[in-house]
């Protein structure tokens, strides 16, 4: 009998299983369970995008694409970024990746060395931490606080910087918090970065999903930051294209060149069919984005209002499609809350600590569901909270 653990990479062995595994298994076994756990849009990919993919298949365009992506797609990405976020990139500063997540992986792998430090504002999306560690880097977590609306403050950033700091990750709008960083917040962060040798990875996968008056500002558009920033973005969230596995990275050419070197040996190219479909997304689908955003916004308002009335305080999350609800009033840990809610009232939400220790005391609730679904879910959460109050 081979002891496989003996042969697996030590770092990967030490990465713990996510607490959501337990919730996922329980949810699958619970009849009539209302799920609020997904991190992907409920919309289908807009038809004209799907049609472009189908046409590419019909014409037999099924070969590898150029490693860095189809040129018309890279040009469309540049036009789109200029139109929507005032970013000026040339096609040679863009690489098309397998989802936004490949861009994260590639940037870390081409920049990090043993002993480097990565500053990670947490709670945040789960992929940064393990990949940075697999690159031999040390992850320095900066706790995002509810009283700051889960935004990164310059003071917290300064306190985390050491001579070994190599990369700062800016994951805004954020999963799981729904937090955004406004232009003045980014200017304050840029003031800290100026004069250092720190590079920034700004993960802007949720850039199109911001609500109210606020429109996303890219960190790369802040004066002086473009040359030390890599922007990660993709098609999954804005265009409801998660299964197409397509994203892109934009940044200084020497970094993009290094990432492409690795990309070509690791994955060769992103899926060609998806790339043809994405050209249509970039060039023709601004209206579809706005329609989906309006729908998310109405559900967001509904959910935040309902949770607050139920007695689960919920700050005004202005981005992505999550609310990060404060369940500390129940006296339960995040995991206890999720398990109890699932067992008693058959609603699945995600424990906040799945996204870092700083998420303890919170749960992530996705509003990427129909309004009917959210209405039933909040009714059940209300009953759950009422029962807790009666038992107390």
């Amino acid at each position, binding site marked *: 009998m081979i002891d496989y653990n003996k042969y697996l990479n030590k770092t990967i062995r030490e990465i713990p299983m996510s607490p959501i595994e337990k919730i*996922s298994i329980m*949810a699958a076994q619970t009849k009539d369970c209302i799920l609020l756990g997904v*991190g992907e849009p409920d919309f289908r990919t807009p038809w004209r995008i799907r049609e472009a993919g189908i046409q590419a298949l019909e014409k037999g365009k099924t070969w590898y694409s150029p490693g860095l992506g189809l040129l018309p797609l890279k040009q469309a990405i540049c036009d789109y970024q200029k139109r929507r976020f005032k970013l000026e990139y040339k096609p040679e500063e863009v690489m098309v990746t397998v989802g936004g997540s490949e861009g994260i992986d590639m940037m870390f792998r081409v920049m990090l060395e043993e002993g480097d430090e990565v500053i990670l504002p947490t709670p945040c999306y789960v992929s940064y931490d393990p990949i940075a560690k697999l690159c031999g880097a040390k992850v320095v977590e900066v706790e995002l606080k509810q009283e700051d609306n889960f935004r990164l403050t310059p003071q917290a950033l300064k306190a985390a910087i050491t001579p070994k700091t190599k990369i700062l990750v800016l994951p805004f709008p954020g999963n799981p918090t729904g937090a955004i960083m406004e232009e003045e917040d980014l200017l304050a962060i840029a003031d800290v970065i100026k004069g250092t040798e720190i590079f920034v990875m700004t993960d802007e996968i949720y850039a199109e999903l911001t609500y109210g008056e606020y429109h996303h500002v890219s960190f790369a558009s802040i004066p002086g930051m473009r040359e030390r920033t890599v922007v990660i973005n993709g098609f999954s969230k804005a265009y409801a294209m998660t299964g197409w596995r397509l994203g892109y990275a934009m940044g200084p050419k020497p970094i993009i060149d290094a990432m492409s070197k690795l990309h070509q040996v690791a994955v060769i190219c992103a899926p060609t069919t998806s790339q043809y479909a994405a050209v249509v997304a970039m060039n023709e689908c601004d209206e579809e984005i706005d329609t989906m955003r309006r729908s998310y916004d109405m*559900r967001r*308002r*509904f959910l935040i209002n309902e949770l607050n009335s139920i007695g689960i305080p919920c700050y005004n999350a202005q981005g992505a499609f999550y609310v990060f609800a404060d369940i500390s009033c129940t006296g339960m840990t995040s995991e206890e809350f999720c398990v109890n809610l699932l067992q008693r009232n058959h609603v699945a939400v995600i424990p906040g600590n799945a996204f870092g220790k700083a998420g303890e005391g919170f749960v992530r609730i996705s509003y990427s569901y129909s309004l009917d679904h959210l209405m039933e879910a909040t009714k059940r959460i209300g009953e759950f909270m009422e029962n807790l109050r009666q038992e107390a």
Partner: protein
Amino acid sequence: MEQLLKLIETNPTLTPKQLAVMLNREEAQVKEMIEDCTAKGIIKGYRAIIDWEKTDRSMVKALIELKVTPKKGRGFDEIAMAIASMDEVEGVTLMSGGYDLLVEIKAKSFQEIAMFVFKRLSPMDDVNETATHFVLRPYKQAGIIYHDEEEDGRSFVSL
């Protein structure tokens, strides 16, 4: 206004308070808009969509194409309204194309519908021709998928 109507159309059980939150307006303002739309006949009413096949009650539906003779000066209105006033009739629509009026009718049995066409519609002076189509199985009504409900193909939970 359009957003409010779209919301009510698909979720009529939302309260004015919930609608106000979702539309970032005051509750009183939403109430006023609903009252105004109702008074103007923009909102015609609120009804549940029921899949009768799942109940014990037998229910048959038919769509009847009618070719009629329009009246001078009153067009199709007179004959359309005369049909619309019959209790058995669920809907009457003036159509373009190969026939004039589409009549929707619900009854307890195919026989009842046949008798309705035979005894009430066909004998009308202005009705020239009828073609009755019985509904065998609805797959989607009012935007709602019947039978094999649309599955959420997403994972139970994902990060």
